[in-house]
């Protein structure tokens, strides 16, 4: 659902009023508004972000096109997602390799980084992330997603790496985030979970 508005030539606060009307008329979707001066652009952007929308701005010869994205898991800047730890909902991720998917390991590495980045922005965080086999490459010092996992850890997500796997790859001393676990705990964590997602 996409709406386009021409707000050029409108005196303040015309552009903000037009933006308000358009955003109020949709549940979610994209509103694109064109203005012809910086003040209008600044004000429209302020209105959009104050209402939890994301904004992308492009410039064309003195005019500004402001693309506002509303809806879909909109995360207000001051709301930080908390991990779901209630007994009825228990989400566990099992990560069995350090790449995502098959076909190209280069692409797989890119996808895993994207996945971890997007997970940080998600409103639904897992209770636990279990790393096995080559997955433990993501929890050691050389991991390309260490900062992402550190942030998840700070937000209460439990991060566990299989001890046997760390040992097999001879990187026991390189563990950089979370704890070491064994197959028994892994089975327990997966059984107790309502939902287990395996990557």
């Amino acid at each position, binding site marked *: 659902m996409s709406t386009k508005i021409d707000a050029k030539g409108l005196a303040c606060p015309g552009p903000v009023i037009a933006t308000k009307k358009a955003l109020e008329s949709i549940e979610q979707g994209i509103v694109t508004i064109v203005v012809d001066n910086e003040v209008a652009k600044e004000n429209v*952007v302020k209105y959009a*972000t104050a209402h939890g*929308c*994301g*904004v*992308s*701005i*492009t*410039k064309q010869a003195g005019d500004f096109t402001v*693309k506002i*994205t509303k809806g*879909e898991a909109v*995360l207000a*800047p001051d709301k*930080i997602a908390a991990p779901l730890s209630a007994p009825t909902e228990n989400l566990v991720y099992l990560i069995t390799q350090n790449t995502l998917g098959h076909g190209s390991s*280069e*692409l797989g590495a*890119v996808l895993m*980084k*994207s996945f971890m*980045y*997007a997970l*940080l*922005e998600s409103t639904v965080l897992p209770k636990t992330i279990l790393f096995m086999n080559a997955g433990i490459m993501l929890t050691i010092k050389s991991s390309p997603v260490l*900062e*992402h996992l*550190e*942030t998840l850890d700070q937000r209460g997500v439990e991060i566990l790496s299989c001890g046997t796997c760390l040992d097999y790859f001879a990187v026991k001393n390189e563990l950089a985030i979370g704890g070491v676990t064994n197959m028994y705990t892994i089975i327990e964590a997966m059984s107790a979970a309502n939902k287990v997602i395996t990557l």
Partner: protein
Amino acid sequence: MTIYLDYDGLLLFDSVHHAIRGEKLLLAANIKIVSLPTPREIDVSCGQCLLFPLADQEKIKKIFHDQQLKWKKLFKCNLKERVYEELESR
């Protein structure tokens, strides 16, 4: 909440191959960057972008120019507010 709040520059590429190559070049040059999926506010189809401190933009553009790596758009971004302002387009 994203952890890279102090990274206020974003580069968009035509293809993921360019993004991958770009990431390698910049890591080799010791420039702090993070690869991430293209923010939905910019484009809804999947793609890869590079996030970096905007202060490094000239350094980055020079490396890409020297290595003949094409990039599509440069944005100034505020990740906290999810505002992306296009600065340059190729």
